[in-house]
Each structure stands twice: as C-alpha cells, then as structure tokens.
C-alpha cells in the first residue's frame, strides 16, 4: 500500500501530544485514567474533548493523582478494558510503586510518557531521567524520534502489550516539548481501517464472577522467585512479538519500524548511540561528516526494553569508538544509564570499542549542530571518557 493512500490515511499537522491522543482514540480505548502534568497535558485535554464530544466512547477517569491514575488503570485492565494513561517525570515518579505491580499483574496498559527532567530544581523540559528511572519495572519501552513515530508506536504498543504471550504494559516515550509540543506533519489512519491492524482487546483471565480468580495474592519465599523468573522470561521473549508487530505495521503503513535504526553503520569507524528526537539532528550531522570523508554512523533505539543487546553487539562490533548519548546522568556511578547498558552489552566482545559518555540536553538544554560537532571532537580524543556538553568545566 502507498503512503499516499488518502482513503485509508490522511496527512495532518499535529503536535506530539495531540498525535498520541489521536492514537488512543484510534485504538478505541475503553478507559483512560490520567492526571494532567506538563508536558503531557495536551494529551489528557484532547482525549477529554474526544470523550465529552462523543467522538470516543470511553470512560475518562479524571483521577486525583498519578498514583491513582495507574491504580485505576490496573483495575480497569483486569476488568478486561483496553486502557491508556499518560504522564511525565514527577507523575511517573508518583506512579513508581504501581509500575511494578501493573507489569507483574500482567495488565497490558499503554502509557505515553512526555519525557521530562526530574526536580529539583523543578524543570518542565526534556530529559530521559523518567524513562531510565523505570527501566527495571518490567514495562516494555519504546522511544519515538518524531510525532509520526509517537502516533504509530502507541498503536503498535497496544497490539504488542495485549498479545497473550506478552500481556505486559508498554511505555511510549516522546521528548517533552521537542515532540510533545511541536507541530509536525504526519499520517493518521482513517478510523474505519484500524480494526484491520488492531482489533478490540481479547482479554485473558479477566475478572469474571462466574469464574472467580484471586488477583494479586501474597507469594512468599516458596513461590516469589519462581513467579519473577516467569515474568523475566515473558519480557525477554516479548522481543519476538515486537519484531512481528513492527513488521506487520511496516507492511500495513508503508513506514518501516525496527527495534534499532542504523544509519551509515556498514563501514562506520565511529558511531553515536542515541534515544529520541536527537536522532534526527544526529542523522543530518552524519550526512555532513560523511561529506567531509569522516566514517561516522548512527544507531538509535526505537526499542529500549527489552534492551536489544544482541543486535547492538552485532552492529557495534568492529567500530573504533562509540559516543553514547545520555539525556540524563547518574550520581557517583560508572557513567549514565544508556552508557552503562552499552558498556555491559559490549563487554562480551573480544575487542571492545572505545566508549565516550556524552551527557547532553538536560532539562531541555538545546542540542544543535554545534553541540554535535563538539561531541564528535570529544569522540576523537581517547583521553576523554565522559563529557557534559556545554558545561564541561
């Protein structure tokens, strides 16, 4: 099918929040439980409009906190509903306790996360602190590079999460303000055709008084570790479903989705690894560097959890030096979060590429071509292992 098939999809201009709201609407969600927080707010406003104008037949639960948002989402999901929620930074931190429970209770909730820095000082702009902070909670995580991907990934996340072999919630990350508030052109589906790709949810073991079950029991030392091992296997094996759904959606939409996007990596001597919207900036810089004869490539992750480690080992082996770009940092640890994971991933290789941890863009600090140039210069210096771009001092 052609991407210009105007019967099935139309080209519109939306910001990331609006696009995500349309994706939730097009997924025909049954329940949305959410609490407003910048930069996610437009999502809940738009979904409220859809519900209050009768354009979306769903229950919008205007909860009194993010903790209750996710709690209500878990309840609704157990009852068999297709459930959406959305938040950012502090709100995700307030949900933290329930994130673990939602995944362990196998509730296939989809959450959009408008990535935002953690307080203090309070800041409403983009960092990936929030996404990283919940990487161990058992949720699948995807990163959108642009508004189109945010829209598409929400639709795909429902299909992946609700697959009976997965039954695990998903987070779709989109950079705060850079994507949540920037209007970009994108294709959205004519709702009539969504069912082809995303039929209604077929719940597994939903609440049913005729077949009563106990959800969320106490499991002690005799069963707890076994149950955790089972969940670990589920998330690990979810990769097969993710690849299958990505392929299916790629064929259906004409837009190609893969766990990892590589650019100019075939003969790359130097590589950058990045998450989110910065991939676009870096790709244009790779073009510029290639024009200057520099053998630079780019790796950006659409899939963050489960971490695509085998692919990364294959893609990054043989590269001389890698700049791992973290829009976050850690205190007193061996490098920021993505850096640590790339380092661990590559450790089993016989020959290790040199690694540079590039800390950039915290709290929305601008990242432009000149910053990418600076990153490149640091990557050429074997004596530098970590750099805070713009605040090197």
């Amino acid at each position, binding site marked *: 099918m052609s991407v210009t098939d105007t019967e099935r999809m139309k080209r519109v201009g939306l910001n990331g929040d609006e696009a995500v709201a349309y994706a939730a609407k097009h997924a025909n969600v049954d*329940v949305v439980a959410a609490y407003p927080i910048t930069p996610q707010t437009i999502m809940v406003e738009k979904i409220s409009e859809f519900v209050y104008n009768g354009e979306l037949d769903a229950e919008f639960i205007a*909860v009194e906190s993010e903790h*209750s948002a996710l709690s*209500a989402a878990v309840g609704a999901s157990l009852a*068999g*509903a297709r459930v959406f929620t959305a938040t950012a930074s502090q709100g995700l931190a307030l949900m933290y306790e329930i994130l673990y429970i939602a995944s362990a209770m196998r509730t296939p909730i989809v959450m959009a996360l408008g990535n935002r820095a953690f307080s203090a000082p309070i800041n409403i702009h983009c960092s990936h602190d929030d996404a990283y902070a919940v990487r161990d909670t058992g949720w699948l995580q995807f990163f959108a590079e642009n508004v189109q991907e945010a829209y598409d990934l929400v639709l795909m996340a429902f299909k992946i999460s609700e697959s009976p072999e997965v039954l695990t919630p998903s987070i779709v990350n989109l950079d705060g303000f850079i994507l949540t508030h920037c209007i970009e052109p994108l294709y959205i589906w004519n709702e009539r055709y969504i069912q082809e790709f995303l039929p209604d949810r077929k719940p597994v073991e939903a*609440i049913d008084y005729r077949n009563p*079950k106990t959800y969320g029991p*106490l499991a002690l030392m005799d069963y707890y570790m076994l149950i955790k091992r089972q969940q670990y296997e589920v998330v690990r094996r979810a990769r097969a479903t993710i690849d299958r759904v990505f392929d299916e959606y790629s064929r259906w939409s004409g837009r190609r989705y893969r766990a990892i996007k590589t650019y100019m990596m075939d003969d790359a001597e130097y590589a950058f690894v990045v998450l989110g919207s910065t991939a676009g900036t870096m790709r244009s810089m790779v073009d510029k560097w290639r024009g200057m004869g520099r053998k630079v490539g780019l790796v950006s992750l659409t899939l963050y959890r489960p971490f695509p480690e085998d692919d990364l080992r294959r893609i990054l082996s043989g590269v001389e030096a890698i700049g791992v770009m973290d829009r976050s940092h850690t205190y007193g640890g061996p490098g920021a979060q993505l850096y640590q994971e790339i380092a661990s991933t590559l450790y089993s290789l016989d020959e290790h590429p040199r690694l540079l941890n590039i800390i950039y863009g915290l709290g929305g600090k601008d990242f432009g071509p000149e910053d990418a140039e600076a990153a490149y210069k640091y990557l050429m210096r074997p004596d530098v292992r970590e750099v805070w771009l713009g605040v090197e001092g």
Partner: protein
Amino acid sequence: MLPDVNKIRTIKEIPNIDLFVSGHRLCAGCGIPILIKNVLRAIPDPKALVNATGCLEVASTIYPYTSWKVPWVHVAFENAAAVASGIEAAFRALERKKGGQKYNVIALGGDGGTFDIGIQALSGALERGHDLIYICYDNEAYMNTGIQRSGGTPLGAATTTSPAGSVIPGKPEYKKSLMDIVVAHGVPYAATLNPAYPVDMYNKLLKANEFEGPKFFHYYSPCPVGWWASESMSIEIARLAVQTLVWPLYEVEYGKYRITVNIRNPKPIEEYLKTQGRFRHLFKPENRWIIDELQRRVRENWERLEKLTKL
C-alpha cells in the same frame, strides 16, 4: 428516605451462602471475617472485591491458596478506592460498548489504608461519584505490621508507636472523624457497622444495593491481638463500644442522619476501656483525665448526632 425493602429481622434470615471460606489465617476473635461473610451475602452477583494491603489481604491469599470464591483484587496499600474506580469504570464502558454486565464493586481497606495512606484515593473516588461500595474495617491501628498507631487510633490508646510511656501515656491525638469526612463528600449513603449488631449490619449492607454512586461503611473490627484483649470477648467488646457511645450505630442518606441503634442509658466508658490492655494505663490516677476526656468526647459526639438527626 427510601423504603427499607428486603429488611431482615433476625440473623436466621441471612442466607447461608459462603463465598469467603475456611483456611484463611485471620486470628481467633478477629472481627474481619464476620464483616466479609455478611458483605458477600448481602451484595448480589455479579460482584468483584478490591482489597487494600493489610491483615485481610495477607491472611486470605497466601499463594497458591485463596479463601475467596468471588473475583478478588489486591494491588497495593493506598489505592483500593482508585483500583475499584478503574474496575467500575471499565465495566461501565464494556457494558455500553460490548453489552457486558455491570458489577457491584466493593473496596475494602483497614483504618491505615483508609484514614491515612488511602484517604486521597478514597476522597477522589467519592468526589468522582463512582458506583461502588467502600468499606473500612477499623481495628484502630496498623495491626498487620504489629500494632502501630493510625489516624483511627483513639486518644490514650497504647500502640507500639504510641506506647504507654512514663511521659506520654499513649496516643496524644484524637481519632479522626472518618464518617464526617466521607459525608462531607455528599455521598448517597454512609453507615457505621458493628459485629455485635448483625441485623443492623446486614440491613445496612442490603440498603447499599438501592443507591447509585459511592456507598461507604465504617465497620468496628475487634482485634484481640492489637488491643490486648481476650479472643472470646470480641463481640462483647464490640457491644460495649455501642453501649458506651464509643461506636454509635447510624446511617446518613443524602445528608440525612438516622441513629439505627438508640442507646437510652449509656454505660460509663470505663466498662469499655477496662476490657482492653491498650487502655490499662489510663486507670492510673495521673491518667484519669484521659478517661474523663474520652467520656466527654463520646457524649458530645452522641449529642451532636442526635441534633443532626433532627435536621
């Protein structure tokens, strides 16, 4: 006021069905199972329960066993009302969109899970007007973790975090008035329950079926372990709580108060206090003022309730 349909007169009229079965690990003399058995008999199918973390949850669902023959959900400590909100909303949406059945959703929390850590989720659920029943089983402290004081612990009671010390003799603060907080939300129906008055309890639970929106019950739940009392005395203590005005039995329908068990000649509060070790230190001469204060407060509260019934 709505007519009292299906009202029972004796406990013999309570149906002999059991959806909360033996094998649970709740203590001898615990007040909770009495509540649960009555709730499950009075609230018809289809129903689903949400249970906050606490004694009832840990004692009834030790994997791979369960005492529940109804759908039962536990998520966390502070969010039973929020989880119940989600279930209720989901069944409402699914009924509308796919012809599913609407469920009677019942949320259960202890005093810690309701007065303290769960009050925000409860307030949110009541304000949003979800069609559900919330029941607080109040044993007046965090019993599951070993008797720590809560917002529901009464003045002077000894707990492990408000011990009967030589300087501070038990909890220095008053019990929070949970019913007032709930009623202030404008809920259709709220009532107090007590296991020594099963007919009153059962009729109030039946009445919940008549209202659309949030229904709330505040249940007096004797805890022999946490109150340093005899297991054989639970019902007697519960009865004394009503007879001494510590636990007035009343209901509020759309703001209209009605005392359901009238106490014409209240017994002195000492008769209640002396049944429980948590109040033993109050009988020292230097702590007499606390008993007097408790006595004054229960009388004032009763008089206030009587005035409210006349509004």
